[in-house]
């Protein structure tokens, strides 16, 4: 699942798709946290709590990213990541 995220992040042109890939990676990490916590340290809850934090922050981050994308669209009329290469040398 993390690998799918990475692949999508690198290959997709659409920024929304990239954002989705990013979410995919985050969720993969969350699942890892939860699962490893459950099987390696059954008596403790740090992993679970960390996951809940990550989900909350991911929601905020997504909102922010969407806002940025909307603004980029307003300026550039385009959300293709490959055309947004103004920030080079």
């Amino acid at each position, binding site marked *: 699942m993390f690998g799918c995220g990475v692949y999508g*992040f*690198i290959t997709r042109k659409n920024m929304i798709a990239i954002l989705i890939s990013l979410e995919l990676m985050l969720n993969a990490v969350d699942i890892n946290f939860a699962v490893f916590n459950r099987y390696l340290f059954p008596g403790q809850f740090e992993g679970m709590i960390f996951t809940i934090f990550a989900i909350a922050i991911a929601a905020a981050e997504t909102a922010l990213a969407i806002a940025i994308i909307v603004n980029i669209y307003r300026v550039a009329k385009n959300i293709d*990541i490959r055309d947004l*290469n*103004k920030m*080079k*040398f």
Partner: protein
Amino acid sequence: MDFSLSILVLVIPFVMFLLLGLVGMKMSHKVAGWLGTVAMGVTTVIAYGIAFTYFFGTGQGQIAEGVRQQIVACDYTWLAITDTLIIKLGVLLDPISAMMLIVITTVSFLVHLYSIGYMHGEVGFQRFYAYLSLFTMSMLGLVVATNIFQMYIFWELVGVSSYLLIGFYYTTPAAVSASKKAFIVTRFADLGFLIGILILSYYAQTFDFLQLTGEPTSVIQSAGGATFLGGSVMAWALALIFMGGAGKSAMFPLHIWLPDAMEGPTPVSALIHAATMVVAGVFLVARMFPLYLQETAVLELITIIGIVTAFYAASVAMVQSDIKRVLAFSTISQIAFMITALGVARPEYHEGVGYMASMFHLFTHAMFKACLFLGAGAIIHAVHSNEYTAMGGLRKYMPITNITFLISCLAISGIPPFSGFFSKDEILVAAYHNSAFYGIALSVIAGMTAFYMFRLYYLIFWGEERDYGDHKPHEAPAVMTIPLIILAAVTVVAGFIPFGHYVTWNREAFDIHIDWTVAGTSIAIALVGIVLATVLYRKPSAVPTRMADSCRWLWRAAYKRFYMDELYMFVTHKIIFALICKPIAWFDRHIIDGTMDAFAHVTHYASSKIKGLQSGLVQNYVTVYFIGAILLAIVTWLCVI
């Protein structure tokens, strides 16, 4: 007057400098000029009060067993760097500093007054007065210095104010280069002075004049007989200190700046380059005289330099055409007289008459030379030229200037009863006591002095009358003639001051005797010089031109000041610049700059090669990041295993 007031003599001019320098531009010319003059007048009154209290007062401990005491009126610890290295600022009153207080404040006050007329309507009038105040403060600080370090500080300050005043007309290239020349030459000499101070105080463990001159033998012995290149270290130190004095006093071969310094306004020439700053070297030697007495070899050197300078400057002065240049060379020559007088002074001859004669001549010379310069200023003011070719027959137009100029010329030539006769006579007496050769040389130079001064006088006031056109020369305004009259009056009476009662090398009074054999000869020689000048220049005649033509090369060499400036140019440009500065410049440009440039080039080259990596494509960055992360993970994993 209480001696503690003496600090005011320094404070008032300094405050005036700040006031005129900072808010002077807001004042009108009239306010600034009179404010400066009145403040200087107050300073003069205080200085006179102090000097007269010192010389004539009957306060306790002023004269003990016939010896005038040196009084430290105030002493303030300025920098205490270590327990032994303490730099103080203070006021030392003794015969020579009290006398210098009178000389400086008198001339400075009269120059302030005179400048109101002379500088009338000039741009930067207030700045001129600010600089004059700065100069006066520095010069007074120099003469009352309690220790050699304080003297050095004020020594440099007078150098700076001289630089500022020579370059007063900073839009004229000649004035700018003259001010730079004066500053660089005197700075070069001051390097010697500084090294001398350091050597001297390193061994003597003190800067203080009272300790240095109070125990000269132990100071000299503190070096422990150390020698350097065949001379004792102390002799070297004293010679180096004299080098600083020679630079300020324009002694050969460091004299080259003084003639050019005449580019400054004429009152400045009168104040700085005739009466006060240029005698700082004489004052320095006089101040350290007990030490110099311990090293007679240095005194011999001083004598020889003095005689050479006096002769050189007198011979150059005989052919110059710019009246201020003539006066400048005559100043150099007269200062050389003072220096020679110090050089030949020994306590065993006639109670060290040379020292007294030197100070006496310093006093009288300051008065009559200031009068000559101010007179020359009045003439330049009237005809708007420095060249004697633009003058002639001026006696009808400027009677007051004529008479004061004549009195000063008679004084400098050594005709009784004018003051120059008495002081020059004492110098000649001292020289004959030391060696007949020195005496004869000085007598001849005194004759030359009479000749060139009267040549100048006749060329300006007599001779052929020029066509002045509609703009007839006229007598200067009262603010300019009053200083001339005062200075001429002083010149007439100053010779009768019993100087030996006040200023002597060991501060014990003695009576001056006029040695009529020496005096008679010197009067005769001076008369010969004057008669010769009268014959040649009183009426327009072709004889001087014919004489100049008959030995053309000699006349030309003298006119070109014996090519000293060319020699300096050759040495600095062809030798120092070409052989030392050029390689250093090459090293700087190619090695030092080259190294730095190489750093920059390498960085620039490397960055241009790798700048393609910053493509602006976010996904490229992420790819690289992931590859890196994976590689790191593999490396870590391999290391763990």
